[in-house]
């Protein structure tokens, strides 16, 4: 069997449609991960030991179980509890929730990295806690972790094909369906692989740039 360029051209529009869904799911999921991760981090710093420990174990649990099973759980179990989600919505929530446990760790490291003197200065200036966090600590912490956060965007993009398991027609799913129609899997799946490598390599170059730009040491 040889490579058929005509066939490749025919399936390309379908694949690009799939790529659109993949990118959409990644971006929306990433927004959830960014916000939820920060929520986890801040909850872990609350004085209440119960909240602290509960959040710690929830995060640990989500982080050390497979994303695929979590997607199944969200897609198949939540409807029986009265919360029916579309496939794409379930996928976006799953991706966001899973990666929020990684970004949580990243934020924690970033906050720990802010020099002690900054905290002491906040106290000395009598800043309210809210202002200390909002205007002093978080801006510095987030700046430090921009490259790591970028890495997780790439990692998440590469995990988005899992959404095909809950019937989202993202890139790999579109390729698989195109292949199933003609029983020629070689071209569609190869094209998908190449697209993934191109996007990942390009974005890792961007992340390296960010690293240089935001380097604090």
């Amino acid at each position: 069997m040889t490579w058929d360029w005509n066939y490749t051209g025919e399936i390309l529009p379908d694949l690009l449609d799939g790529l659109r869904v993949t990118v959409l799911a990644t971006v929306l999921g990433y927004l959830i991960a960014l916000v939820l991760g920060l929520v986890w981090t801040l909850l872990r710093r609350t004085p209440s030991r119960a909240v602290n420990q509960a959040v710690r174990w929830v995060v640990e649990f989500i982080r050390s179980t497979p994303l695929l099973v979590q997607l199944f759980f969200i897609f198949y179990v939540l409807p029986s509890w009265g919360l029916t989600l579309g496939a794409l919505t379930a996928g976006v929530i799953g991706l966001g929730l899973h990666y929020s446990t990684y970004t949580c760790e990243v934020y924690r490291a970033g906050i720990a990295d802010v020099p002690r003197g900054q905290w002491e200065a906040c106290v000395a200036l009598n800043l309210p806690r809210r202002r200390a966090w909002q205007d002093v600590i978080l801006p510095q912490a987030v700046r430090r972790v921009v490259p790591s956060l970028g890495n997780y965007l790439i990692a998440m993009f590469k995990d988005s094909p899992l959404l095909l398991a809950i019937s989202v027609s993202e890139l790999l799913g579109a390729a698989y369906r195109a292949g199933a129609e003609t029983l020629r899997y070689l071209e569609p799946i190869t094209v998908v692989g190449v697209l993934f490598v191109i996007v990942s390599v390009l974005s890792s170059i961007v992340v390296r740039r960010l690293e240089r730009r935001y380097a604090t040491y």
Partner: protein
Amino acid sequence: MSDVLDAYPQLLRGTWTTVQLTVYGAALALVPALVFGLAGTSRHTAVRALNRVYVEFFRGTATLVLMYWLFYALPLVGFRFTPVAAAVLSLGLNVGAYGAEVVRGAVNAVPRAQYEAAVALNFTPWQRMLRVTLPQAVALMLPPFGNLLIELMKGTALVSLITIGDLTFNAQRIRAATGETAATFLVILVVYFAIAQMLQLAVRYAERRVDRMLGRRPDRRAAAAASGAGAVKA
């Protein structure tokens, strides 16, 4: 819930498959991790380029895409893999790429004076690597390797999509047979969590052993640098 627990032989079989795939995948990943990782520390540009190509390519592809490609696309040009071979290959090569970055970072993080001392003592290049550099580098590699091992274990859930009877695959069957969706998925999530915790304990134990072997606690900052250079998902 009891229906699900009654299906425990199926769950056990699935768990065993998951554990096996994790072990095979880790064993396979170790080879490219060491070979290409050490290639990345070479002083020859061409050898270092080899490391870059391998790492960028396999870190750039999604595991599931690679798995589908090996399983569905390659047979059409004459390479036929069994599902298990396709799964282990794609998991191993993918994690191997992250591992290669860890190895490179760890070897580079061994203080240069150690190398100079080994040269001054007239060690051969082999002795330098095996007796001086690697033992110290291993101590730095272990924590990020532990993270990668858990990533690999989580990645094995993907094999259920190419018809291998792992834990997730069996869960789907139990779910179909009993209709107990929530209970089934909760049970296997807990099993995965338990496996991850055990892997973590094993890695901690290995870390302590290596530290004792070297007669020290590793330098925390160097370990962090090695892991930061290595894994995207560490």
